[in-house]
């Protein structure tokens, strides 16, 4: 069992700590590849329907809150920066900076969820939640509702990923506070950093797919 004063010996199945770290990283890259297939298929399907129901998706997307979506992109991009700087701090043995940067990253994650929650409330007030209070506005037909179904499924799944990431960052913060990480052992942080930046990347694609549509000034 790992203790706060962790020994620097690798687990029995690895020859060196370096090999253990590289294996952990590769494991996360495999997981990310599966996540790419998951979100990739979702976004691809969205684009197909967007091309088929061009006008209806344009109408529906105009009701999304682009400012809130863009603020959330900025928040997650900034959190990716703080996360990678936290990993660097661990690598360089700067314990205090590591803890502060991890907590800032978690705080930015909470900010993202807060803005997303506020946006969902706005969506509810605009009567755009399928099966709850969806209102067919002027010009809306059933594909417009399909757009909003995609919106909630995609952003909902993403929010779940962000929530899991925040939980993991808080756990790592706890371990960092107990001095578990050192320049010789920080692979859990490196792996978590990969996950967090990937979740950031997914939001970048979701933003590009959902929000800029239907606002062009002709």
């Amino acid at each position, binding site marked *: 069992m790992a203790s706060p004063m962790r020994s620097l010996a690798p687990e029995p199945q690895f020859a060196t700590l370096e090999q253990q770290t590289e294996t952990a990283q590769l494991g996360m*890259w495999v997981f*990310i*590849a599966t996540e790419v297939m998951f979100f990739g298929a979702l976004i691809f399907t969205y684009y197909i329907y967007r091309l088929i129901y061009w006008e209806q998706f344009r109408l529906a997307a105009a009701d999304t809150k*682009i400012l809130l979506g*863009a603020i959330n992109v900025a928040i997650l991009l900034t959190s990716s*920066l703080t996360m990678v700087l936290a990993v660097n701090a661990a690598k360089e043995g700067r314990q205090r900076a590591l803890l502060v940067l991890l907590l800032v990253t978690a705080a930015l994650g909470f900010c993202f969820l807060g803005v997303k929650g506020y946006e969902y409330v706005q969506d509810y007030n605009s009567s755009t939640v399928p099966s709850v209070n969806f209102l067919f506005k002027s010009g809306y037909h059933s594909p417009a509702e399909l757009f909003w179904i995609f919106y909630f499924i995609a952003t909902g799944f993403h929010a779940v990923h962000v929530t899991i990431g925040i939980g993991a960052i808080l756990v790592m913060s706890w371990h960092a506070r107990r001095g578990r990480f050192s320049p010789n052992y920080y692979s859990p942080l490196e792996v978590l950093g990969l996950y967090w930046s990937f979740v950031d990347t997914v939001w970048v694609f979701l933003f*590009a797919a959902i929000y*800029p549509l239907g606002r*062009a000034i002709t």
Partner: protein
Amino acid sequence: MTKKPEPILPYVIAWLVLMLLLGLSVLSAYLDLGFFHPFVNFGIAAMQAAIIFLVFMRLRGPPSLKWVFAGGGFFWLMFLYGLGVIDWVTRSGFPSQ
């Protein structure tokens, strides 16, 4: 033991470029790009993703074996997209009117 500090500047520059691309993405929303709109938005997102993968996720550093996994994920995604597009362009009577 501490290691030599890694410079912060490349990460900050990457972040600034990402913010700039975000601004472009928002700006493009208000431009009448017609049919090319989704392609422009997707292109900007792809550029942002490339920066995140290369800089923040350190795809350019060791171990080089991770390129196999990252490339494998990308390959199968393109495989999925290819089959998906073939299905879409060859299926008749879809969507049903």
